[in-house]
């Protein structure tokens, strides 16, 4: 008799179906989070002095570490500096290449190109753009009669230079999402708005932008998370310098773990980063959900 399987059998089948994903997630995500939490409560381990339980000592010394606060400040500034600009640029580019213009395919490709380059390759390109005197940037300034600047060697410009690379790299990627959303919108909306006498600005503000809110939510969450996880260009461009002026959270974790051999502090920093990312993601969902118009 082959009929509908009984409830227990179905439950077992269900569990078996999610088992592979659960095992992989547990082994590579959940378990490491738990071990990181445990490691952050223990002292730095060496063969001579094994790790021992120290409670919140690691968190206390982190709070007293001026470099940590500098790095946190940099990371927040980095997020504020890159996210709004890359989203605005992405939207502007999407609106532009969504129209029927000659060479639209080429233009879309050009906007998307930075995203396709590996970050390390892109950072190496920018390293030579920023190089004092011989770099592209200084040569352009020279043509305009301005003198060169030590872009990456000056604490006040090192972080903005990293931001520029990131904006250049990310906005093309976010443009794709906006473009997809724009293509999904019905042309009747525009016609209806025009019939009602709305100008292009009013149409954008009252119709288009609200309709794009789900995309904006998605993109902004991604952009903020990316900003807090940014690390690759630092290896090439500044190594966090001069004197931590451009050091970001993830690079500081790397330094602690692999350059200082200090797993305990690295674990503590990782817990802080995880907590931050969780809070950011949740608050963004809650805050923006109220203003997002889902169709």
């Amino acid at each position, binding site marked *: 008799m082959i009929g509908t399987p009984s409830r227990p059998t179905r439950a077992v089948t269900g569990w078996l179906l999610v088992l592979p994903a659960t095992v992989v997630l547990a082994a590579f995500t959940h378990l490491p989070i738990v071990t990181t939490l445990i490691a952050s409560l223990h002292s730095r381990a060496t063969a001579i002095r094994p790790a021992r339980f120290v409670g919140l000592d690691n968190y206390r010394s982190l709070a007293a570490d001026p470099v940590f606060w500098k790095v946190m400040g940099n990371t927040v500034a980095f997020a504020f500096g890159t996210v709004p600009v890359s989203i605005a640029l992405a939207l502007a580019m999407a609106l532009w290449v969504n129209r029927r213009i000659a060479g639209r395919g080429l233009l879309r490709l050009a906007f998307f190109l930075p995203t396709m380059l590996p970050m390390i390759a892109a950072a190496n390109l920018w390293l030579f753009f920023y190089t004092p005197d011989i770099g592209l940037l200084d040569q352009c300034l020279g043509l305009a009669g301005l003198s060169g600047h030590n872009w990456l*060697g000056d604490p006040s410009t090192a972080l903005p230079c990293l931001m520029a690379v990131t904006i250049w790299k990310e906005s093309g990627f976010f443009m794709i999402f906006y473009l997809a959303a724009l293509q999904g919108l019905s042309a009747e909306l525009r016609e209806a708005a025009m019939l009602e006498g709305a100008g292009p600005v009013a149409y954008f503000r009252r119709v288009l932008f609200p309709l794009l809110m789900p995309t904006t939510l998605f993109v902004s969450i991604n952009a903020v998370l990316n900003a807090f996880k940014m690390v690759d260009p630092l290896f090439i461009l500044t190594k966090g310098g001069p004197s931590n002026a451009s050091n970001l959270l993830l690079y500081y974790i790397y330094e602690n773990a692999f350059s200082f051999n200090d797993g305990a502090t690295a674990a503590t920093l990782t817990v802080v980063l995880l907590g931050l990312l969780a809070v950011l993601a949740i608050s963004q969902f809650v805050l923006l959900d109220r203003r997002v118009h889902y169709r």
Partner: protein
Amino acid sequence: MFGRLTRAALTAAALLASSAAPFAAGAVDLTMYYPVSVGGPLTKVIDGMVADFEKRNPDIKVNAIYAGNYDDTRVKALAALKGGQPVQLSVLFSIDAYDLIEQDAIVPFEDVATTAEDKSWLSSFYPGLMANGVINGKTWGIPFQRSTIVMYYNKTAFREAGLDPDHPPATWTDMIAAAKKLTRTDGSRWGLMIPSTGYAYWMFGALAKENGETLMSADGTRTYFDKPPVVEALQFWRDLAVRDHVMPEGTIEWGTLRQAFVEGKTAMMWHSTGNLTEVRKSAPFDVGVAMLPANRAPGSPTGGGNFYLFKKATPAERAAALKLVRFMTEPERAAEWSIATGYMGVSPAAYETPALKAYVKDFPPAAVARDQLAVSTAELATYQTGRVRKLLDDAIQSALTGAKTPAAALTEAQDQADRLLKPYR
């Protein structure tokens, strides 16, 4: 179709595996990690040397694994040890010795090199290259890929400025005087650049040594960052930009400095000897190489990688590992390695080999690093070396960018280093 391909691949893999299995009874398998942190196809050179060794020692099989830069290699070797994978020896950063001792990962060579012949081999290297490897009277690291800092200068620019291209400046005063003549006021050429990203502490070790002071004690438990000669050295570095106007202000990028020199944007630069071959190939002008100029004394720190023997190994494996290290550092091999890479020959005997003698005769700058060895000092290495190094790097960069005075920056770094190192005294 796909299934057949997979089967073919599996068969091939099985064949490879069986052919790689040891056939001699009592054979020893060695695993060695090594880094490459300069450009060029160095992995091929190492593979060739290892193949030579296996040919001469058929009962020893060496698995040499290229593992990235110095930090990557240390992390991978230690992770392999923790994971129970066999690693009997590795080439790691010469300044990692304290950390490796603290991790109880390595054994001193004296434990393994016990015969009279072994002992005379231990004392066959340049003492300057042993400084980072000998700790508390024991030899933990044997020099292999080692470098030092030299001054590259543009001979064409020297001639143009009315300077003698065959007599590069030998003192700080001479260097400033020459740099002033070489600097063009329109900013199109600087007199001198000393890089201050990536390896700022290394360059600073040279300046401190030239001012008559080392950066740390020989047992790695004390730093001397706030001693007056050290502070003066940093003031001198800062003054090159703000008082003498012969160097750009702010930090100078290690990675693009070679390009700036080759394009004539600076007439002199301090850089690793590891760049020698590349600079020689790409510069459109006559390149001169000189020892670093002296103030109270001449000198430069050494740099680069040493061989270490790991603790987790059987006596037979340790003996085989020692054999391999001895083979790799033999004068002939050291000469071959030096010519292929630009790293130094590690023993005086290496420079007596016909191959290296002929090479130096044809290309005299290759001997500058060797001559400087007589006055070289150890690279900054202490317990907690990564953190201490970073403290000094940050202090240097904040002084060079004008955020702090040299005295304030170095005193602060010294205080923090004291806190880190107190438990080790």
